[in-house]
C-alpha cells in the first residue's frame, strides 16, 4: 500500500485517518490537532479562569487519563495558570475499582498532581459490592451513578476547587441525548449537552472533551503510550444506556459525523414554556443540590438501610407507595408487639397487674399510666428483644427508649421526618467531614 502524505502538508507520511474528519495525519500532527481542538473548546467555551483550582475527575479510564494529560500539557503550553488535582471515587467494586485506582495513583505520579480518593464506604456506609448483594445486577448502576455524582461534589468541596473537569466525550454526550429521548427525560435532555453544568451555589462541572470523539481519545492514549485502565465494570452494564450506545455505534458506522449532529440537536432544542421542569433546590437532609425535597442519594440510601433497596428505583410515586406500605407494616408489627408485651406482663402467665390499669372490665384505658405500680416498664420496647431486633434490622429508632410510648402514635410521621439513616448529617456514617 503506497504511503499517504499527512494532510497538513508537513511532509511526513500519515499514520492514521482521523475518525472525526476522515483526514489522514501523521502522529505528531494528530497530537497537535487533538490538543489544539481541546484548547479551542476550553478557550471558546470559557471553561476556566486564570488561577482556578480544578479537580480532574479521575477514574483511571482512558477519558480521564487523557483529560489529565491534555490539561497538564495545555496548562503548560498556553499558561492557563490552573492548579490541577485529581479526584477519585472508590465505589468499592472488587476486581475493578481497586485495580483502576492503582492506575490513578500512577497518573498522580506521572503528572505530579495531588490526588484525593473518597470511598462510598466512608461516605455512605456501603460499598458497591454490598449494594449489589442487596439489589442484584439490575439497577445497580443507578446507585453507583447517583452516589458518584454526589461524592464528586463532596470531594470537590473538600479540595476547595473552583470547578470539576470530567472526561465526558462526544460519544457519551450523544449517547445521553439519545437515551434521554428514549426515556422521555426532558429535563436531562435539555441540560445534558451543556458544556458547563451546575447551579448557583454548587461547584460547576466542565467537559473539555465534549467535542472529542471516543475513538480519537483511544488513539491518542495509545500513541502517547498513556497508562490507563480499560476493563469494563464487573457489574452488568446499564441496560438503557447500552441500548442507546448500540444504536449510536451503528449510526456512527454509517455516518461518523452523526455524533456531532446529535450534539448540535441537543444544543439547539429547547423545552416548551408550558412544560414544568423540576426546580433545583437543596435536599432537606444532606443539604446538597436536589430537584426533590429529598435527594435521590438520600432516598437510595434510606432504601438500603431499611432493607428496601428498590425504594429509589423508578418513579417517586412508587417510592412513596413503598414507604407507606413499609410504614403500615411497621405499625402493625409494633402494635402486635405492644399487645404481646402487655399480654405477657400484665395478663398472661397468671399474673395480675396491680396497677389497676388493665381493668378492662371497667372499660378503662388499657395503657399503664403514671400510677402504675408494677415494674413500670410499661412500653419499654428496647427491653423487649423482639423490638430490639426489629429496630436493629430497619434502623428506625436508635436509642429512643423514652419515646417508645409515642411509637404507635407517631410512627408514620417519624418515618416521614427521619427516613434517611445515612445521607443526612444525623448519622455517624455520614457526618464525617460534612
Amino acid at each position, binding site marked *: 500500500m503506497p504511503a499517504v502524505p499527512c494532510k*497538513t502538508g508537513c511532509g511526513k507520511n500519515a499514520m492514521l485517518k482521523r475518525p472525526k474528519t476522515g483526514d489522514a495525519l501523521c502522529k505528531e500532527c494528530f497530537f497537535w490537532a487533538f490538543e489544539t*481542538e481541546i484548547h479551542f473548546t476550553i478557550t471558546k467555551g470559557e471553561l476556566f479562569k486564570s488561577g482556578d483550582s480544578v479537580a480532574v475527575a479521575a477514574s483511571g479510564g482512558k477519558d480521564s487519563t487523557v483529560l489529565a494529560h491534555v490539561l497538564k500539557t495545555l496548562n503548560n503550553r498556553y499558561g492557563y495558570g490552573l492548579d490541577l488535582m485529581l479526584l477519585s471515587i472508590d465505589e468499592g467494586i472488587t476486581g475493578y475499582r481497586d485495580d483502576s485506582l492503582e492506575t490513578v495513583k500512577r497518573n498522580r505520579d506521572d503528572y505530579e498532581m495531588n490526588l484525593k480518593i473518597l470511598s462510598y464506604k466512608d461516605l455512605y456506609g456501603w460499598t458497591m459490592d454490598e449494594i449489589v448483594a442487596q439489589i442484584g445486577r439490575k439497577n445497580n448502576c443507578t446507585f453507583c451513578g447517583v452516589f458518584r455524582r454526589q461524592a464528586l461534589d463532596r470531594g470537590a468541596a473538600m479540595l476547595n476547587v473552583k470547578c470539576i473537569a470530567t472526561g465526558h466525550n462526544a460519544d457519551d454526550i450523544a449517547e445521553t441525548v439519545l437515551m434521554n429521548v428514549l426515556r*422521555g427525560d426532558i429535563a436531562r435532555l435539555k441540560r445534558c449537552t451543556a458544556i458547563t453544568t451546575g447551579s448557583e451555589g454548587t461547584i460547576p462541572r466542565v467537559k473539555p472533551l465534549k467535542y472529542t470523539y471516543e475513538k480519537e481519545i483511544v488513539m491518542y492514549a495509545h500513541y502517547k503510550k498513556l497508562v490507563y485502565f480499560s476493563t469494563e465494570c464487573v457489574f452488568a452494564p446499564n441496560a438503557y444506556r447500552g441500548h442507546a450506545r448500540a444504536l449510536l455505534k451503528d449510526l456512527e458506522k454509517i455516518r461518523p459525523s452523526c455524533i456531532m449532529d446529535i450534539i448540535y440537536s441537543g444544543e439547539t432544542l429547547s423545552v416548551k414554556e408550558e412544560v414544568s421542569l423540576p426546580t433545583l433546590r437543596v435536599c432537606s437532609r444532606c443539604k446538597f443540590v436536589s430537584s426533590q425535597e429529598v435527594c435521590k442519594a438520600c432516598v437510595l440510601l434510606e432504601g438500603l438501610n431499611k432493607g428496601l433497596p428498590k425504594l429509589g428505583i423508578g418513579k417517586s410515586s412508587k417510592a412513596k407507595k413503598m414507604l407507606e406500605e413499609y410504614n403500615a407494616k411497621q405499625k402493625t408489627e409494633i402494635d402486635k408487639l405492644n399487645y404481646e408485651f402487655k399480654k405477657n406482663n400484665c395478663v398472661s402467665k397468671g399474673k395480675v397487674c396491680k396497677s389497676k390499669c388493665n381493668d378492662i372490665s371497667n372499660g378503662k384505658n388499657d395503657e399503664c399510666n403514671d400510677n402504675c405500680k408494677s415494674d413500670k416498664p410499661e412500653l419499654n420496647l428496647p427491653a423487649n428483644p423482639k423490638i430490639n431486633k426489629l429496630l436493629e434490622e430497619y434502623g428506625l429508632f436508635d436509642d429512643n427508649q423514652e419515646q417508645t410510648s409515642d411509637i404507635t402514635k407517631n410512627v408514620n410521621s417519624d418515618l416521614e421526618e427521619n427516613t434517611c439513616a445515612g445521607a443526612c448529617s444525623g448519622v455517624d456514617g455520614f457526618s464525617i467531614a460534612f
Partner: protein
Amino acid sequence: MNGITLNTHKKLRISPVFLHVNGIVSTDDSVCNFITNQCKKYNVDLISMNISSMITEYKNYNEADTTVKNNNFRMPTINNFINKISPSAEKDFLSRIRQKVLYKMAKDLECNSIFTSETNTKLSAKLLSNIVMGRGSQIENDIGFADCRDKDVKLLRPMRDITDEELNHYVRIRHLSFVDTSVSEIDLQSLITNFISDLEINSPATISTICKTADKISSADDNTGKPCRICQNNLKTKLDKLTATDATAFSKVVSSGEYNASLLTHNFECVTKMEVFPHIFEELCYSCSKNYYEFKTNILMH
C-alpha cells in the same frame, strides 16, 4: 371544507384530494396503478406527480454546478443533487423536498389543510432521524400534530397516536389492501426504522414515550427569522458561545493544515465556518448546509 371547523362537528364535510408524490423511493407502475384503483374505489380525486418535476429553478445542471463552484447558493436540481450525496443525506433532502411539494400542491389546489398518514411509530423514527441529522430544533414542526410553518396551509397528522401495530390490526379486520414499498437500504433513517421496529416489539411503551417527548420540545429558534431555502425551518437559532458547528469547522481546519493562531479568535467565525458549512444561517439551516457541503465537495472533486 367546513367539516373541520368546530361549528359543524356532527359531520365531517371535507373535499379531499389525494396526492401521490413518487420518485422518493423507486417504485414501479404497479404501485401507481394500485393507488389509482383505490382512489377510484373510494371515489376521490387523485393527483400523482414526480418529485423531480417540482424543482425547476435550474434545468441546466451545468449552470447549477458553476454557481455552486462560485460559492453562490442556488437550489440544486433533485437529480443533480442526489447523485452526489450520501444515502442518508439524500433521504433527508428528499423528505424536505416532498414537504415542499405537499405545500405547493395544497396551495395550487386551494386546500387549507394537508393530512399525512404518519403513525406514532413512524413519527418516533422521524424524531430520532431528526436528532441524528442535527435537526433537533425542528422537531416541533416535524413531529407535532400540526406543522404551522406555513401561514396559509397547515399540515396535520391525524394518525399521530396510532401505532403501526394498531394500524395493522385495523387493516386486517377491515380487510383493507395495501402495497408494501419498504426497501432495505443502508442509511441512518433505515437503521433507525429498524431500531424502532425492535423497540415496538420488545418495549412498546418506549414508542409513545418518544412521541410524548416531542410534544415537550420546541425550537430555540427565533421565529421572526427568514426560513431555510430547502426545509423552510427558521434560520436564526439562539446559540451558545460554542456549538458543534464551531467545533466541527475547527476540526476541519486544524487537520487540513490551514490553521493559524488567529483562527482562535475573530477570524474563525467569518472564514472557516462558512467553508465547512456553506450558507449556514444565511440561506440554509445546519443540516441542509451539511448536505449542501457534501454536494459541493463532490462537484468540486469531479
